[in-house]
């Protein structure tokens, strides 16, 4: 039996609409569920005191500090490398076998599961380079992980800078380097920051790669050579060992809020950037 096309369309569209609604409901549920259970646990004591009794009581201050330092280390290493890569790919070469290889490498790196980053970081940074479980080992591992994101977004941002800008700069006698540094990069800045913020968001939420490289010490880190537990690792341990569900929800809420805030800034910047361009 063949239904009239209009009827089929109405049927299919309502199915697709239902799928979309279901997706949004599930995703929003995750956030609302965590925030509703977790927000009541958050107060200044929770945020600004040390955990007690393995995290069953007290606050989460050292994990909060670790979750700030670790992404900073990662970005400090990945941003210069990623931006240089993108500048090289867009301003300094033509499409060739080499650029395709570099892009393919970055795409593959983006697809590597975080547990493999963890294994690698554990063997390479922690063991072979003798950095031990430390914020530095974790930061270096995360740097590799967020590198592809920074390369990709920076590349797109640089490509969006109109060619006329470069031509004017070149016609004024500027070298390619000066044109890149004074004209291209400043105009691509919001896009570049988007990539960096996305990397920060990913670093804050990461667990598998961090637990084997930065370790899980609950003490306040005195330097980047100390082992320290990030919020996400702390939350994972609280949840898995069933130490305290109140603390787990509270930590999860802080975790989600920080990741969402960081990503919101990232997408906000990207939107403004796109609007300015078009």
């Amino acid at each position, binding site marked *: 039996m063949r239904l009239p096309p209009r009827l089929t369309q109405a049927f299919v*569209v309502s199915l697709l609409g239902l799928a979309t609604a279901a997706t949004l409901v599930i995703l929003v549920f995750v956030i609302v569920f965590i925030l509703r259970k977790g927000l009541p646990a958050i107060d200044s004591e929770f945020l600004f005191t040390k955990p007690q009794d393995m995290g069953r009581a007290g606050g989460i201050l050292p994990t909060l500090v670790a979750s700030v330092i670790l992404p900073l280390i990662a970005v400090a290493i990945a941003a210069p490398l990623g931006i240089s890569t993108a500048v090289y790919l867009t301003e300094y070469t033509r499409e060739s076998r080499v650029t395709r290889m570099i892009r393919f*490498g970055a795409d593959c790196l983006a697809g590597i599961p975080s547990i493999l980053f963890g294994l690698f970081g554990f063997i390479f940074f922690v063991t072979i380079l003798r950095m031990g479980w430390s914020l530095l080992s974790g930061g270096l591992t995360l740097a590799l992980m967020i590198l592809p994101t920074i390369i990709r977004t920076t590349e797109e941002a640089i490509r969006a800078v109109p060619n006329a800008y470069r031509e004017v700069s070149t016609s004024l006698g500027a070298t390619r380097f000066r044109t890149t540094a004074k004209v291209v990069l400043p105009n691509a800045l919001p896009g570049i920051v988007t990539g960096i913020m996305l990397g920060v968001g990913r670093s804050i939420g990461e667990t598998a790669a961090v637990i084997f490289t930065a370790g899980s010490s609950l003490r306040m880190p005195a330097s980047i050579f100390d082992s320290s537990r990030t919020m996400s690792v702390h939350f994972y341990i609280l949840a898995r060992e069933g130490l305290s569900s109140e603390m787990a929800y509270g930590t999860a809420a802080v975790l989600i809020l920080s990741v*969402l805030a960081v990503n919101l800034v990232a997408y906000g910047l990207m939107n403004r950037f796109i609007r300015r361009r078009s």
Partner: protein
Amino acid sequence: MIRIGEKTVRRLLMAAAFSAIGGLLLIALFIFKEGLSFFIETGFRRFLFSDVWDPQSGRFGIFPMLVASLWVTLGAMTLGAPLGVSVAIFLVEFVPRSVMRVVKPTIELLAGIPSVVYGFIGVMVLAPFIRSSFGGPGLSLLAASFILGVMILPTIISISVDAITAVPASYREGSFALGATRWQTVRMVVLKAARSGIIASVILGMGRAVGETMAVIMVAGNAVKIPHSPLDSVRTLTANIALEMGYATGRHREALFATGIVLFVVIMILNTAAGVMVRKRVSGKRG
């Protein structure tokens, strides 16, 4: 101010440009270095197809984990792929652009929710629900598949939306001019033109599902056995590595790195396949 020559700049940038591929090679090198000799000594078939994993007696067969990873991934794709592609079609073809401009970033924003949080929701909400309505331990293949299916949605939606948006408007107009409805146009023209991009999105989602670790550890139950029903507790390849890495030494640790090799190879195959699909789309449009 020190003047840096153009040539120096070019060389420095080129060196930096190899950082990503260098990182990839380093990761491959060290995971293979730690695990390959074990892999060869144990034998390809004994390691992959033996179903006894007992580190204490020195027997390392990853077949149950291999099967579990396969089923969990298939389960996740069964939910995530049709749902994700449906959402993408709906957003591009059937709602005003202004709605899509709000919904798509929202979904991408949600991609940032850490995997441990999804795992936690699985433990607190989904597992008890499965236990009370279908029986079994709750923490199961089914729970893991569902959570992963949801987690890969943003990946699939975001890339599929881009692929469908990239189909030229003239294709649609041609179809409308022939009297086709919008859905007929989508089914017969748009989806055909966007096919390789959509397939790429599904493959990338699959890569994410295979590689996901923390959420799976929390909801899959982690029993080392070949599952006979979706309600059985299972342990995936990734979970196996993460669960035992903390205390493994000697041969046991090598076995975990060998598991990492298997995972690495699977992921590289998926990445390459997705890359081929994306390139096909680009060259198809030019030609």
